[in-house]
């Protein structure tokens, strides 16, 4: 297998740029990140890309691979390059810094806008909260908490592309997990933050986020939950 090569096209430049083609030796269990790393270390030291853990934990290495956003460290070449060619681009919907590295500022800024941070209600004097894993709300929260902030859903989302201020699947998914955390004290403020322009109601339920989330989370389901929660809160006059 190592005697074979694969043709790889990699985006070079910023918003303006071009694809450059490389021939990379095939290896067993080779990932897309392995390919990019091979190119940078052996063929083109100027190639910029981002990675850290290489094992699907840190969420740093997401790129667009043959048209789909993916976590490259755990995407095997066998799975995505059936015809023997590979086209690697930076993530969509985020400004390109250079080559395959994108600026994630907007992505994380929107988490802040969605008030997607835990608001504690207990003090040091309080005992631990008793939360049963079987509690329906806890199950809703648990279903969404494994997000690694990789930006794949944000890149896959057409609503983000069409509506610049849309908060996006990841921030809204985080808001939904907090909404279902009985220890959290920021629900009303959070629902206000995610119910305006660019909030959860803007979602078209395309479900590309669910389709492509490498952790198999379902942000569309979380956003649907937020839509129901905001409608209920609006009917009660809470937001």
């Amino acid at each position, binding site marked *: 297998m190592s005697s074979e090569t694969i043709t790889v096209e990699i985006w070079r430049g910023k918003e303006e740029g071009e694809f450059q083609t490389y021939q990379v030796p095939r290896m067993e269990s080779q990932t897309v990140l392995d390919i990019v790393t091979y190119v940078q270390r052996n063929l083109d030291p100027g190639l910029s890309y981002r990675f850290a853990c290489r094992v699907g934990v840190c969420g740093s290495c997401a790129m667009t691979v043959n048209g789909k956003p993916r976590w490259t460290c755990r995407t095997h070449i066998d799975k995505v390059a059936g015809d023997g060619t590979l086209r690697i681009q930076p993530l969509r919907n985020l400004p390109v810094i250079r080559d395959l590295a994108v600026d994630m500022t907007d992505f994380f800024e929107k988490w802040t806008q969605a008030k997607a941070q835990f608001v504690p209600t207990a003090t040091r004097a309080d005992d631990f909260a008793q939360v049963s894993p079987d509690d329906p709300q806890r199950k809703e929260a648990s279903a969404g908490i494994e997000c690694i902030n990789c930006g794949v859903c944000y890149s896959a989302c057409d609503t983000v592309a069409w509506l610049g201020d849309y908060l996006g699947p990841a921030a809204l998914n985080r808001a939904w997990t907090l909404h279902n955390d009985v220890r959290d004290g920021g629900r009303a403020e959070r629902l206000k933050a995610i119910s305006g322009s660019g909030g959860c109601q803007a979602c078209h339920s*395309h479900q590309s986020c669910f389709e492509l989330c490498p952790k198999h989370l379902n942000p569309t389901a979380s956003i649907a939950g937020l*839509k129901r929660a905001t409608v209920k809160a609006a009917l009660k006059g809470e937001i």
Partner: protein
Amino acid sequence: MKAHRNHANYWAFALHRLSGVALLFFLPAHFYVLGLAVEQAATLDMFLSWTEAPLVKLLETGLVILLAAHMTGGLRVLAIEFLAWRDWQKSVVAITGGLSVAAGLLFLLNAG
């Protein structure tokens, strides 16, 4: 269809949007023809006899499928937004598609 969009739920969205746009063009024509009944009965009769042609019946079948697709697609969206989440979303897409085609076939069976 771009690679990241090529999945059942996106196709369902696209069909819902395209059928909506198509019906936007159809409805004014539909109401214009209905309006002929008020003052131009003869023209309306001529039009109605034209609609008996097999090719027009076939086109009408397409319209019925579009209408059914838009209605079932709309119900699907309402279910997503107002009912508890169901994990069998792709089955829902298949059901809406099946119902739309069935509505068209039912129309075609009664067209003769």
